[in-house]
């Protein structure tokens, strides 16, 4: 079960959130835009405390569900920031919808 450890939003649409499921600690920042019942996250950056790729796909659905409940939306669309490492540095990843 994910829960918020800390957050900042500074009165704008940009958020900086630290959350945990008891095993992982994840920090993320993004510009959040609400379109009807969809939250669009622009320029999403994620930092997993255990290092690169430690969050794993199995933990993502729970994290996404939790975030949707927090934002009171039915859908979430992620428009990630430009990759600077991995297989495609310089590439903007395609949007993901959940």
């Amino acid at each position, binding site marked *: 079960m994910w829960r918020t450890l800390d957050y*900042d*939003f*500074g009165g*704008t*649409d*940009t*958020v*900086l959130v630290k959350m945990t499921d008891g095993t992982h600690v994840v*920090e*993320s*920042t*993004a*510009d959040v835009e609400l379109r009807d019942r969809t939250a669009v996250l622009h*320029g999403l*950056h*994620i*930092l997993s405390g255990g290092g*690169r790729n430690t969050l794993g796909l199995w933990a993502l659905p729970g994290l996404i569900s939790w975030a949707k409940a927090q934002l009171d939306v039915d859908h979430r669309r992620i428009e990630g*920031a*430009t*990759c*600077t*490492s991995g297989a495609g*540095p310089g590439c*903007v990843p395609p949007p993901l919808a959940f």
Partner: protein
Amino acid sequence: MVLRRTDALDKGVSVARRLFAAGLTLKQAHEAINKLAALGWASCAIAKAENLALLSAELAALNVELRRRRPILAYASEITAMRGRLGLSQRDYADFLGIDVRTLQNWEQGRNKQDASAISLMRVFEQVPDAVEQALTEPVT
């Protein structure tokens, strides 16, 4: 101040958090890491009270170099020194910059001040003279 990415931005969130602590708004910090990811550099305003040496060291550990903008207006001696390091006469230097040699002489002797774009061009020319020469000329066909 200018931020420059030196490697992969694996800890962009940490960079944003540190910039936020240094006085940027959260939105500015987020914009900075997006630009660092996309362009490799970003400019930002750091609070004057910030310990810049400490901030620089902390950002360096996150693959981000903190750089200070050089003053836009140069002293006359700096212009002479830049030309000297390139080993050019006043006439050759003025030709490369596309200005009248008397204009250059006035700058070097402090009689007139160059504008911001001219000093920027001179500094770029000192760093990458071949690229500037290529950019300012074209083949005759």
